[in-house]
């Protein structure tokens, strides 16, 4: 287990009387690729801005390497930020942009020259020194913004939806680019996004946020396979969220039909929510299924077919590479470990809101 590098303790922040962050606690380890994921207004950008020093929390502390930096201005912090809209200095050349931080630190001319060369090579934009930022495409500007930040050798790089303005193909390329950069530089990345796919692809740790509260912290696999509440299940990928009854340990009644599962410790006859991912549902012959239903919709999605199966008055979302025609009677089967049991939401922020990308 690596050391804690940053510790956010009881951070609260409100704007114009509206609470954006409420008693937020989060720590970030050295060399981690941590993503703050959530819908707009969930507080993820505010958290990043507090880390960068552009906002001061109403209460709480930001601890960096054991030191309280809550009130330290941005220019005194060992972090650098890549902004959403790049924020390059349009009146300077690319080289001047990258050299900006180094000149302030009073580095020698040759050191700066070397660093510019190194940074441009790292982001695959060699020979761009004398170009003006306005002459670059969005993706290129974003790389320059990254280069400008990393030449300062920050301990932590903060990235505020840096790929948001790019088109899909470029976005995917940049995701691999960022993973490569992170591995080459060996520094901590804190990444803000509302795109669940981006978060799953790049992160070591994902922090899912909603309405100013952290919903779940975990690895991409854990977040996807074992969502802790309806909001997380719904926000990350497609899912069937079904109100159910936990009969006893390892047995849950879904839509009145008993299913074997692997979860324990919920007590007896307790109402719960069950999450089943669409790709975890097997469509079998009616005789072999735990439950039977009729296929009502069929859409070809490329990699798989998306089907809707009506069974016990519930519309099951099913993904499968095998096509089953509309109107077919099928059996529904789910492996016990593919059934994820969650407690019922206890507050509004834990509820599913149907936000799908």
């Amino acid at each position, binding site marked *: 287990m690596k050391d804690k590098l940053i510790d956010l303790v009881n951070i609260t922040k409100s704007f114009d009387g509206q609470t954006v962050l409420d008693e937020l606690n989060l720590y970030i380890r050295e060399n981690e690729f941590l993503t703050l994921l959530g819908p707009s207004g969930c507080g993820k950008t505010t958290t990043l801005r507090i880390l960068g020093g552009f906002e001061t929390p109403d209460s709480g502390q930001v601890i960096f390497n054991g030191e309280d930096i809550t009130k330290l201005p941005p220019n005194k912090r060992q972090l650098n930020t890549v902004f959403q809209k790049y924020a390059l*200095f349009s009146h300077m050349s690319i080289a001047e942009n990258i050299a900006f931080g180094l000149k302030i630190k009073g580095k020698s001319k040759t050191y700066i020259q070397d660093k510019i060369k190194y940074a441009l090579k790292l982001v695959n934009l060699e020979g761009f020194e004398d170009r003006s930022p306005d002459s670059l495409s969005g993706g290129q500007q974003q790389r320059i913004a990254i280069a400008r930040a990393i030449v300062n050798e920050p301990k932590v790089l903060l990235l505020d939806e840096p790929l948001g303005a790019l088109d899909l193909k470029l976005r995917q390329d940049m995701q691999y680019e960022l993973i490569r950069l992170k591995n080459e530089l060996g520094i901590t990345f804190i990444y803000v996004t509302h795109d669940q796919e981006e978060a799953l692809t790049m992160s070591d740790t994902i922090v899912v946020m909603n309405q100013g509260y952290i919903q779940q912290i975990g690895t991409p696999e854990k977040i996807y396979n074992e969502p802790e509440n309806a909001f997380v299940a719904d926000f990350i990928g497609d899912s069937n969220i079904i109100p159910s009854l936990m009969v006893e340990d390892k047995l849950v009644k879904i839509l009145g039909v008993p299913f074997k599962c692997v979860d324990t410790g919920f007590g007896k006859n307790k109402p719960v929510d069950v999450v089943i991912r669409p790709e975890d549902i097997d469509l079998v012959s009616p005789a072999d299924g735990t439950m039977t239903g009729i296929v009502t919709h069929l859409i070809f999605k490329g990699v798989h077919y998306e089907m809707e199966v009506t069974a016990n008055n519930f519309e099951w979302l099913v993904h499968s590479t095998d096509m089953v025609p509309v109107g077919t009677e099928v059996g529904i089967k789910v492996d016990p470990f593919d059934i994820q049991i969650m407690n019922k939401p206890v507050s509004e922020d834990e509820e599913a809101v149907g936000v799908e990308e």
Partner: protein
Amino acid sequence: MKNKKLLAGPYLFWSVAFVVIPLLMIVYYGLTDTSGAFTWDNIAKITTPENLKALGIAVLLSVVSTVICLLLAYPLAMILSAKSVSQSSFIVLIFILPMWMNFLLRTLAWQTLLEKTGVINSILNVLHLPSLDIINTPYAIILGMVYNFLPFMVLPIYNVLIKLDRDVINAARDLGANSRTTFFKIILPLSMPGIISGITMVFVPALTTFVISDLLGGGKILMIGNVIEQAFKQGSNWNVGSGLSLVLMIFIIASMAVVAKYDKDGEGTAF
């Protein structure tokens, strides 16, 4: 397309009748003598000591006024741009309010205020303070120019600053710049188009004014505008007046060309 061209008709007529033809007339009068024969004499009149002095005073006073306007306007524009829209629009209103009053009236008001037995001196007398004796001096003219033209400096700078991306400033801070460096390396260079626009909009009318120098200078201080006015009205010599106007026009175009060289974005041509 044809219809759109038609829409430009009224303006075209207006500009031909009241801009192009008068300009050509000024060129004609400026390059002829009273008998209508071609001559450079009217242009050469600028080299007489009195006229050179008038041009020099005009340049000096308008440069000083422009600098004072800039020094007053920039901090104000910065404060305004940092405030929320509802707060700043009130302050902008206070600034624009006087502009709704006629410019001559406002200048006349200053004359009354500054007079030896005027309002300001009466108050100073009551308070047993030394009286303010600046009416009919260059100081009064500068005061009048700054008062009249300050809004034209504030607004273009404010417009540029309000459009400045906050994250660009944050980026500079993030890269280690303190507020002083951020201002001189980032904010000031990025607001140059507004500054140049403001300079243009203050310097040009200040250079050519004759009303302010007439009313607040008591006719003792002649600026080039006054000389041209006198040539037309008192001397009834349209030829000399036109010749000097041509010189002044060329002088303004040249100085604006120098200013425009520093204005890469071309936003400063707002006059």
